[in-house]
């Protein structure tokens, strides 16, 4: 954990986002290599450059057919982390059209494709998905996101016994960089908190099928801070 270093390779989908970058930092701190995957070449190379020579950038669209499997073949990762963010407008279920909701569910389908690809990781490998605290603590106005997060946890539950011995875990983040009005501890969550939790699951060979809530006991209030 500190003196322990390992050189394992971690493929991070959504590598230029704040969760992806935080995960890469934790991986590199441990001595590993972070392979950042994203669609925006400029943003990706800026993030990878700032992380140093243990970070590499690969431009790819995780939504494209076979893209993630191809990355597993070409990059030979030990672990996969799905840290993509959805670029979709979605809110409550009555107010969000099915078309809009389907765009939000792009994150589910990338998670699905990544789990499929993870089945061919080496036996010591793992995949970590991100859901969200609204999966189990819904709030009015966020119904589509609650459903998306719940669907990712359902995917994990079903797949964990199908891709074994590759391990499969989920980190469920609460609000990040928001006023902590739903949290038990008066401190805003940071992307680094999520990166630490992802590293904790990647590097523990006895954890699979876990959903780790990293949300400071999020349970009430609003996300807007009102």
């Amino acid at each position, binding site marked *: 954990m500190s003196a322990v270093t390992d050189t394992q390779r971690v493929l991070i989908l959504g590598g230029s986002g704040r969760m992806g970058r935080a995960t890469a930092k934790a991986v590199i701190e441990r001595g590993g290599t972070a392979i950042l995957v994203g669609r925006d070449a400029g943003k990706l190379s800026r993030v990878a450059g700032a992380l140093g020579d243990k970070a590499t950038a690969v431009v790819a669209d995780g939504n494209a057919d076979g893209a993630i499997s191809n990355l597993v073949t070409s990059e030979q990762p030990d672990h996969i982390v799905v840290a993509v963010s959805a670029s979709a407008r979605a809110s409550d279920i009555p107010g969000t059209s099915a078309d809009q909701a389907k765009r939000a569910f792009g994150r589910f389908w990338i998670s699905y494709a990544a789990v499929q690809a993870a089945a061919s990781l080496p036996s010591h490998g793992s995949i970590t998905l991100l859901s969200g605290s609204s999966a189990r603590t819904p709030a009015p106005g966020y119904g589509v996101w609650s459903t998306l997060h719940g669907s990712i946890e359902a995917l994990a539950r079903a797949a964990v016994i199908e891709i074994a*011995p590759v391990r499969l875990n989920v980190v469920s983040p609460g609000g990040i960089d928001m006023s902590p009005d739903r949290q038990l501890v008066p401190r805003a969550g*940071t992307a*680094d908190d999520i990166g630490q939790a992802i590293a*904790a699951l990647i590097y523990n060979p*006895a*954890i699979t099928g*876990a959903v780790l809530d990293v949300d*400071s006991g999020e*349970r009430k209030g609003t996300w807007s801070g009102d």
Partner: protein
Amino acid sequence: MSLNPFDLTDQTVVIVGASSGIGAATARLSSQLGSHVILVSRSMDKLEAVRATLPHPENARSIAAGYLDRDALNAAFSDVGSIHHIVIPAVANENKKRGAFTALPVDTMRASFDKFWGQTFVVQALGQRIVQGGSVTLFASVAGLKPSGADSGLSIMNGVQAAVMQTGRSLAIELAPVRVNVLAPGVVLTSVWTSEPRGDLKSWMEKSLPARIAGEPEHIAQAAVSLMTNRYITGAVLPVDGGLQTT
């Protein structure tokens, strides 16, 4: 400042049940990560033997106290100042509480709850010494999430594990901003299990668990440190069981 997200430099970590197994492994890892370790169990001799194996024994001390006597715990800690983290992997001879439900003696069933009361007493006695950002890590078992089989003889003990989980989640609310989390180990190769004639547990786990791995104290220690050091985790229940609960 260390970049290691699991760093414990200069933090005081109290480990109740530190004389063997998961507790001793947690002490070793916490010491390696730079913490001041306070080892607690009933036997000073056993604690001192563990302390001698720590990466930094000079940065650790032993306190002999049982966790079933709250007042004695309080007294034993009278000269200890503030603390950062409490971890309570102490076991109360769980396998001696086994038995078919219809034949379980009343005393055995009541004693099953030693694990619940011991952890509760530790938090009551020491919780107020925890500094901002600090944490408590309680220990249940994955059997509190998924009951063990009909012939396990653990129906009451499984209820104890669930009680630890729900009280832990409740204390996360009541004691905030102190963080309170619960670890739910599966089968771990410690003296609790391996002293029992339970066949070849290791090969069973390596063959049957989704992760194809036998649980070791170090796995649980690593998870305990993860919960301690993440300031955005409270009220969480983390299974560390090789996937036992999914099978």
